[in-house]
């Protein structure tokens, strides 16, 4: 009881529809509002800053191009976190899987000759296989030995990132000078661009279609196939799944390998479509940003796609805001972090109802037994 008011927290029996559907929107709005305080503290008008961030980004061909390009690795790694999440597992290692894909993609691009129509698919498949094998390790250890997949996947990320750093300084080092980079990828490995279709967005490459395709495929897998059903049941109650004859171990391995394939392809696409050559630390943490993306979009693969686009807008808009107002781009990271915090808060409001009432003499009768019967 605080100041004559009685605050009661009670469990909801079911989540109202508006909360369920509104959560992503509330979350984003709340993060922007609180992020606005940081902007005010920096002496910037938040309305003007957000105006620059969103309007400039979404109304210029340059902005849209950048958003689409950025969204590709974000969506793919977002899906790589999302799919294991549906089976109840956390893939915190999408970043490492992305690096392994980048390494393998670079190697195939440099070592497979032929026309683009051969090199690009080989590069993508090779990257997918490498990412998948990297993710197989946490998947298998979890399935066979019950080892915590969070720790294994996260630790393997550092191994993967440092491995790439080693390769470009050693076996895969190329180019002139002493820079830690690989050889530049041949033109045959460059991703076809959309210039022919949308001249305004000429730099956008086919990676965008890979991301869309991946989201649609994951959605199909989860919603229309027996395997997807097994994944969903396992994620909801692994014991019941096991008892119904579902091979839960197989599900665990499968979701991790598929996640690795997606993240691995993201790595190759980033190298072939943007960077042009393998560099150490080329990723600005796509695989980690993927975690809030997967959380924001956790109710469906297409939502993950939208969440990926939104985070791409944040990143691209953040840098134009940085230029226009000369403020640190770290403000974007603040907003991303706030999105996660508000998502967690929203979880609480989904489960509990809070009522505040003036404290009468009689203590109010409990509305419905809270959280009981456990």
């Amino acid at each position, binding site marked *: 009881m605080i100041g004559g008011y009685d605050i009661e927290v009670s469990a909801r*029996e079911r989540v109202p529809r508006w909360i369920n559907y509104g959560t992503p929107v509330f979350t984003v709005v709340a993060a922007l509002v609180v992020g606005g305080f940081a902007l005010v503290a920096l002496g910037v008008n938040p309305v003007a800053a957000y105006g620059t961030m969103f309007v400039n980004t979404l109304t210029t061909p340059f902005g849209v191009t950048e958003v689409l390009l950025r969204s590709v690795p974000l969506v793919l790694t977002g899906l790589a976190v999302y799919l294991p999440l549906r089976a109840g597992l956390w893939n915190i290692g999408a970043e490492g899987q992305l690096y392994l894909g980048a390494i393998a993609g670079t190697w195939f691009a440099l070592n497979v000759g032929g026309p683009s129509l051969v090199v690009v698919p080989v590069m993508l498949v090779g990257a997918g296989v490498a990412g998948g094998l990297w993710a197989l390790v946490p998947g298998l250890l979890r399935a066979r030995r019950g080892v915590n997949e969070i720790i294994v996947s996260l630790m393997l990320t550092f191994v993967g990132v440092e491995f790439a750093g080693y390769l470009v300084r050693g076996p895969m080092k190329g180019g002139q000078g002493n820079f830690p980079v690989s050889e530049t990828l041949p033109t045959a490995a460059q991703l076809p661009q959309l210039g022919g279709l949308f001249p305004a967005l000429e730099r956008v490459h086919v990676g965008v279609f890979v991301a869309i395709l991946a989201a649609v495929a994951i959605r199909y897998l989860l919603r*229309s*196939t*027996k395997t997807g059903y097994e994944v969903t*049941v396992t994620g909801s109650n692994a014991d019941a*799944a*096991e008892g*119904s*004859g579902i091979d839960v171990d197989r599900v665990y391995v499968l979701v991790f390998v598929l996640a690795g394939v997606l993240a691995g392809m993201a790595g190759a696409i980033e190298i072939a479509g943007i960077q042009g050559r393998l560099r150490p630390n080329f990723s600005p943490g796509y695989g980690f940003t993927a975690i809030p993306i997967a959380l924001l979009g956790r109710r469906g693969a297409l939502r993950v796609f939208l969440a990926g686009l939104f985070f791409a807008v944040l990143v691209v808009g953040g840098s134009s805001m940085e230029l226009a107002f000369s403020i640190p781009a770290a403000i974007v990271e603040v907003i991303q972090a706030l999105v996660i915090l508000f998502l967690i808060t929203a979880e609480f409001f989904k489960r509990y109802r809070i009522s505040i009432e003036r404290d009468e003499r009689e203590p109010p009768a409990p509305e*419905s037994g809270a959280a009981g019967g456990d």
Partner: protein
Amino acid sequence: MDPQSVPGERVETDKTKTAPPFHSCKLPPVESDAYLELSGVRKTFPGVVANDDVDLTVRRGEIHGLLGENGAGKSTLMNVLYGLYDRDAGTITLDGEPYDPESPADAIASGVGMVHQHFMLIPRLTVAENVVLGDRERASGVRADDGPLGALADVPFLGGVLDALTLDMGPPVGRIRELTAEYGLDVPPEAPVWDLTVGERQRVEILKALFRDVELLVLDEPTAVLAPDDAERLFETLETLADSGITILFITHKLEEVTRLTDRVTVLRDGQRIDTVETDSVTEDDLARLMVGRDVLFDVDRPPAEIGDPVLEATGLETEDERGFEVLSGVDLSVRAGQVVGIAGVSGNGQVDLAESLVGVRRPSAGAVSVGGRDLTGQGPRAFLEAGVSYVPEDRLEDATAPDLSVMHNLMLKSYRGDSGFGRLDYDAAAERAERLVDEFDVRGVRDVRKTPAGDLSGGNLQKLVLARELSRDPDVLVAHQPTRGVDVGAVEFLREAILDQRAEGTGVVLLSENLDEVFALSDRILVLSDGEIVAETTPEEADRGTVGLWMGGAVDDPAVAASDEPAPTAEGRTDD
């Protein structure tokens, strides 16, 4: 059929008492030395009345038993007493004062301590550290009576900082030694808890309470985790405590513990107090009736069985728990088509292991299981499923359903594999089938089979859903564990009839239940499971519930005698083939 008609009448008269008595005219003068008094305590959860108008009077210095089946409301009542739950109605007085604990800390401060069934100890810390946890002494030199430095402790914030940063284990260790000597608790204060046996850990729990000067000690099924020797030792400790004036409330569902230890006992059933009696004035037989008996058998029509070939056979089943203790020690079982075999027993005697071993969820450490003549020993749930075994587990929310998925998703769990090619699932057909099953089994509270999460259904409806799923497969074998526990009366009848219908279709049924009414109403044969063994076998026609209740409580001196003498060779008998 009922030779012990006198206790039988007792139950009749007791039943009439379950109507809430008027609180004002309740207390005979004898109980004026009451230490703890609960009156009209009621606690509900959504859809469940866990405690309904419970009165309980515990006298100072006595050992008071609280007896009841699982789900009778014992633990809820104790959690109310310990400040973990708010009660909905009723009053509690402790030592004459109104008692309204809002948290366990309140309860302890008022002198009420609790030893939980699952220990609340930190294995890495020592006994003494566990005992003082949350109740530490400040280091010497900065105590309030320690002169200039001690004065700092009176500064409100600083005092808290000092509390948090300093710890002196000297005085507590001395005190613990005193307590262990006084009550014969015998645990070394410096030993790390991970190094202790289960019995010793329990003594640490008791020490924790004594260290905080409790006057009422509540023990929640304390012997569930103990070996017999440790249990006996615990009883001696409790007697010592009671002699020194500490009041003890002992929760159990084991009859022999009540008669061995308690002065008086209160029996709870279905959340209501049935009776409070002097332990000396009753027999275990009476207590069994009070605990499990209802006045009327559910009137389900059980036509004579048309027994077929054996469909499920288990021989020499043994299992171990994760600590390596034997749970099942050699269970033989044979079920024929069209036959219901009831396994009566108080839960915790190996039921879960037995049920899970019969459906492939658990792999027994020894023994064999075959279904329809095919040996499936060592196979997983899928093999059993495909051999035609259906399973209704005891804990339907944990083991049988995916609560946040829809009713449809849950109903297709055993049949989704189907035959359509390429791994595509036909959700339209599944939804149609789900709607049909929801209708047929009268599952209520389903708005849209595709959308309503199974977890939104009430206990009874969720159980109907599970049974619908399992029976719609037209199984050869059904293993049902406590199929009607926690289910409202209407649903109970429905579920029982569904099981009997399935029997008429030629399914062999294994029914594991603590509820003797249920076992008697449905079974063709009754086996009694106690301490991991089948200790007796009978039929509903041969035995009466009081006897079976005694066997369930472990009161079979010589299992061989009970198993072969009493029921004699029965109509369908054991199939020792």
